[in-house]
């Protein structure tokens, strides 16, 4: 058994988790609730083992580095943090409906990592610029932020769907969308998730700046990746200020959660493929 097999299995287990959570949501299959959670926890453990094994394998082939250094590895890690963050939210808020919206993000990430021809799964050694202790701190903090923003976007979608239906018809618990948590609760969790993401994005940007300074002698050079991370930071800063000081909530915040996540995706993915800059080594 090698790491790519384990990570391949993870892709399918996340697909199955998605189906379970969707079943809970659509068919109100309450009996599946515990199964879905247990299954997702097992999937997370398989993925954790996969990531750990990949780390070990890198030592076996004499490279020896954390599995966080190219597009493939970062997408895998992204999926991992989404599931971990989601499970924490599930445990804290005792609701599984969010799973039907959040777990698909992890599945899509894993599917992209496994099947895309654009990215290589090979364990390649670290180029000199990446040989730094800041690597792990920078990547981990950024991706905790990204995962939180992914879940905030999932919650935003959930809010918008429920809101549309509520304006059309009176809420009825027997309808499909009636099983979604109350709008107020979704709004509250969206906000809290964004707050959490914002803190980690800030730490991610700062660790990146410190690393850049120790490698190149400049903590900020307005390269496209840096600039886009700052744009993302601005988007969430605007969102939080609008909420705290102008009382924004509901639909507006839900849209901002989506807009913010688009900015996250562009920072993470778009920049590497569409623009050039210092981070270009992340694109293969």
């Amino acid at each position, binding site marked *: 058994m090698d790491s790519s097999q384990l990570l391949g299995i993870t892709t399918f287990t996340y697909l199955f988790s998605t189906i379970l959570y969707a079943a809970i949501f659509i068919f109100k299959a309450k009996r599946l609730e515990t199964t879905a959670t247990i299954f997702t926890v097992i999937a997370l453990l398989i993925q954790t083992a996969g990531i750990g094994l990949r780390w070990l394998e890198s030592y076996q082939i004499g490279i020896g580095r954390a599995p966080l250094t190219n597009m493939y590895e970062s997408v895998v890690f992204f999926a991992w943090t989404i599931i971990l963050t989601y499970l924490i939210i599930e445990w804290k808020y005792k609701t599984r409906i969010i799973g039907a919206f959040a777990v698909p993000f992890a599945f899509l990430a894993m599917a992209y990592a496994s099947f895309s021809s654009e990215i290589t799964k090979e364990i390649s050694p670290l180029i000199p610029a990446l040989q730094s202790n800041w690597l792990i701190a920078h990547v981990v903090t950024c991706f905790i932020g990204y995962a939180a923003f992914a879940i905030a976007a999932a919650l935003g979608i959930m809010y918008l769907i429920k809101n549309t239906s509520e304006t059309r018809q009176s809420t009825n618990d027997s309808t499909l969308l009636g099983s979604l948590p109350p709008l107020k609760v979704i709004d509250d969790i969206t906000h809290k998730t964004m707050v959490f993401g914002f803190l980690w994005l800030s730490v991610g940007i700062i660790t990146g700046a*410190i690393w850049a300074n120790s*490698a190149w002698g400049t903590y900020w050079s307005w390269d496209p990746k840096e600039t886009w991370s700052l744009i993302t930071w601005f988007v969430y800063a605007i969102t939080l200020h609008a909420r705290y000081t102008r009382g924004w909530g509901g639909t507006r915040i839900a849209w901002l959660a989506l807009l913010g996540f688009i900015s996250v995706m562009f920072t993470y993915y778009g920049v590497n493929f569409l623009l050039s800059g210092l981070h270009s080594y992340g694109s293969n």
Partner: protein
Amino acid sequence: MKNNNSIWDFFASVKLALSTLFILSITSIIGTIIPQKETAQQYIERYGEATANLFQILSFTPDMYSSVWFQSLLGLLCLNIIICSLDRFPGVWRQIKADNLNTPLNRLEKMTPQHQWQSHNPPESIASSLKSSLSLSGWKAEERAVDNGILLFAQKGAITRTGVYIVHVSILVIFVGAIIGSTFGFKGSVMLPETRATDKIYAFDTQKPIDLGFEVRCDRFNIEFYDNGMPKSYRSQLTVLENGKVVKEKAIVVNDPLVHKGITFYQSSYQPYQEFMLTITNKKTGVSETAFVSYQEQHSFKESGLRSGIINAEGRGENISRMKIWFTDDKGEPSLFWLDDGEQVTVERTTNNYTVSAKQMYATGLQVAKDPGVWTVYTGCFMMILGLIVAFFMSHQRIWLYIREEEGNKSSILMAGNANKNKAGFESTLQALAQRIKKV
């Protein structure tokens, strides 16, 4: 501080903050799409003359982020943060320092969450036992006699109300650090061939020479490759000289620079030469000679009859890994042998032995920076994280206990409280606390 004038209000407004952040987000995108810091010629080739001109007029090129209008936007953001904080902070400070025992009792009665219960003891005795019970749970209560009874007040985290201001100030601190760096520091680079020293480097933007005030020498540069051909490390052995004396030596690699007198030297690039350093040592006399030879050039050494050269070489791209040496001391047939880059071998000749080593010549590309503002920036970063944690996750929690004297030497107790954040969490905290102290 608060002025009733509209200019002040404009700069203190959140609307301005939101607009500025929005405009900064949108305009920042431009510089990520139009490549920055290229030459005028490159822009003309890329966009055509008319568009290139327009971009230059709008300062989109060559360096949008240091253009007057973009820097003004950043300045506006700072001004907004300063005025907004000056406008609001005094109010927040009053809340932190407020005399909460002065809170009107009718406000407490309306406050939620609240709990009420009765006691068979008179107010004085119940107050003192409640106080000690509260302190066991970490609440230090103050006491004041009020109408028909006693008011107790305890709070936690009053200072956390400053969290948001710590974040705002941290942004200003980061900007101050950046200004210190750009005013008193410099950024430049230098290409330094092996064995050579320099006391000057060249500024990035103007290419003007900058005096270091000391000399830095590159003794040796080498590249290592992984088996698959990817570069593994770039290493420059640097020596710092002051008045010709060695004061510091360090081998730098990417991510591990050399610092001397506040100036940092970073490994950033290299330039291979088609030139080699050939060192020959006569084992008998111990005399060593080094020559810089071009590819396939025969060099005559000082020792009579000693000639050598590199007649063939192998490597990746321009980086030589092995070379074939031709060597003679004019006694017998010339020797021909392969040598790895940087390796040393002994050549046995009829009357004497020699050690021969050869190495391709490189120049190391150093990025050189002096930035006295870095620690200010880092302080700002640290403040920002601290401030965000305080602002997001810590709350100011207040608890009042109004102990009213009832007929027959009894008391009724009203416990009420509030928190400025995480109200649900506070509600259960208060609930648990009420359960605990009710037993008193």
